[in-house]
């Protein structure tokens, strides 16, 4: 099976432009980038995809062993790069996909020109002096939360066209629900994500990187973003005015401007 189908790869912009690969985080799918990628599609080859098990990826390709660690997802990134023959790649990863990009760049540094890490965290659980923001119990609580939303899954995540008067163009897309996933896969990815520890991988990546940090981010607090910036050998750090964990949705203009400035450096 080709990665285009497996990962539901969608491309925009000129084929000969510098590739820009956008990776979504835990929760939803590539539509997380809908307000961001158009700003780059004029002069970049924009590549969007869904992680296996999410969005419109081929769910039958999901394999609990391959995806038992973030390395499995990083391997998918590299396979996409190989099959689409992407080089000199600007990788833009949100949330856990920041670390997935770090792992991919550590494995094949020659492929990547730059990394943009939106809300990265190399470890979510507190550990001695390190403050990740969560305890093991909190993560169990998340798994419970996923389970209690299991029963309402179909109705919760069913397409809802209401409330989109401002953006009628969304209605068509809404027949797909962005955050709908097999609860078993969601729980598995949650475990892999929130129990991961990739702190030691940061120093292995010399690719020029940008850490985009939101204010009041409950998932990746500012101290964690600062930690990532500190450990990455070649990184810059931008504190956004945006709050929360998804500036790509809540503050796309600020997000785009920060990425553009970084790419112009």
């Amino acid at each position, binding site marked *: 099976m080709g990665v285009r189908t497996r990962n539901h790869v969608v491309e925009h912009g000129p084929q000969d432009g510098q590739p820009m690969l956008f990776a979504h985080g835990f929760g939803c799918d590539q539509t997380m980038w809908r307000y961001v990628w158009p700003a780059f599609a004029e002069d970049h080859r924009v590549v969007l995809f869904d992680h296996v098990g999410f969005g419109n990826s081929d769910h039958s390709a999901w394999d609990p062993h391959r995806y038992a660690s973030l390395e499995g997802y990083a391997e998918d990134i590299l396979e996409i790069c190989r099959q689409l023959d992407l080089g000199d790649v600007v990788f833009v990863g949100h949330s856990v996909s920041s670390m997935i990009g770090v792992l991919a760049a550590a494995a094949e540094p020659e492929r990547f020109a730059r990394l943009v890490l939106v809300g990265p965290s190399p470890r979510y659980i507190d550990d001695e002096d390190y403050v990740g923001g969560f305890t093991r119990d909190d993560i169990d609580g998340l798994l419970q*939360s996923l389970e*209690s939303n299991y029963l*309402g899954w179909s109705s919760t995540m069913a397409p809802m066209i209401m409330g989109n008067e401002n953006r009628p163009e969304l209605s068509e897309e809404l027949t797909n629900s962005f955050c709908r996933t097999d609860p078993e896969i969601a729980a598995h990815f949650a475990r892999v994500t929130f129990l991961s520890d990739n702190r030691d991988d940061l120093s292995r990546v010399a690719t020029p990187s940008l850490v985009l940090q939101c204010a009041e981010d409950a998932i990746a607090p500012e101290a964690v973003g600062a930690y990532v910036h500190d450990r990455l050998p070649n990184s810059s750090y931008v504190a956004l005015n945006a709050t929360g964990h998804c500036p790509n949705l809540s503050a796309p203009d600020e997000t785009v401007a920060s990425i553009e400035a970084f790419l112009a450096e």
Partner: protein
Amino acid sequence: MSREPDSLENTGEDLFEDAPCGHVSTRLDGTIVRINRTFEEWTGLAREELMEARRFQDLLSPGGRIYYETHYAPLLHMQGSVRAVAVEIVRADGSRMPALINSTLRRGDAERPGEVWTSVFDATDRRGYEDELLRASKREQEVGRRLQRSMLSGALPSASELELDVVYRPAEKGMEVGGDWFDAFWIDDGGTIALVVGDVVGHGIDAAATMGQVRSAIRALVSTGLTPAALLERLDEYAWRHQVGKMSTIVFAELSLGTGAFRFACAGHPPPLLAFPGQEPRFAWGGRSAPLDAYGFDGSRSEAVESLPQGSTVLLYTDGLVEHRAQRLDDGMERMRSVVAAHHSKTVSTLLSRLMRDVPDAEHGDDICALAVRLAPAD
């Protein structure tokens, strides 16, 4: 009688404050700007402590907060509304209130900033009921598994002229038991052994119960001295009459330890694999007929006999071993044949574990069951 002009307004205000659901208005970043009295009463949180001071997501349990940030907030921004998501709100006293929340996003414009309106429904009773449902479905899976285990356990026949072993691996994905089963028992005093591998349609407790009935029926029929084909015919009748096990596949065989006669019949089941000493393993394509009760019972079962030299191995198995997503049936059977060819000199237990090793774990969405028996080699 006419109402005072302000009384309607009061009614609206009262409705907001004492509505049968909690209400929370926030800015787009979650900062609370307004709550109603119902929410205050349910949570014990006072509005003066919350307004302009806390964000709605800060009131959730930590796990719920992650869910909010990774699912709820993105959906809200993308769709403009979210419905019936289960969260837990942490009350002033630290206890947790299960809640279902609905939100609508009102995007801002030049005149006014955007807002999110959230209705909060107390879901304590409902959550209790849902937990019970979840527990019940887990219990059912557990019962099915136990039922199956109890039927598939028990000592295998053993004798000095014989080496026999079984592997059984239930499907990994999904929690219900599958329909694969096996049986091996003496037909008479140490002279002939009955070997059965089958696959009943369906999953869960029903499949386990069907398996139990088919298995018992076979054991009962064997004692009446029927040949394999006649036994399957009677089993058809049983299945048809009692509406049990329709379309199940079965391979039933009798192996005489004294003569090496291997008499077998396959009802829609993959063929036995025979490995004779010094020869390439081959499939025994004889004795084939349709799955159980496929066309009612019409007495059309056939059987075949092979004469096994000493040191021969017979392998009975279910389709999970040879057919899965990444592998076509033909390729799977050829793979199995080559593994048996390469490891025929090993013990049957080793042989089985080699066969299982080559089946990628993740691939098997199906049960796998395999039974191997070998006649002791000539001295």
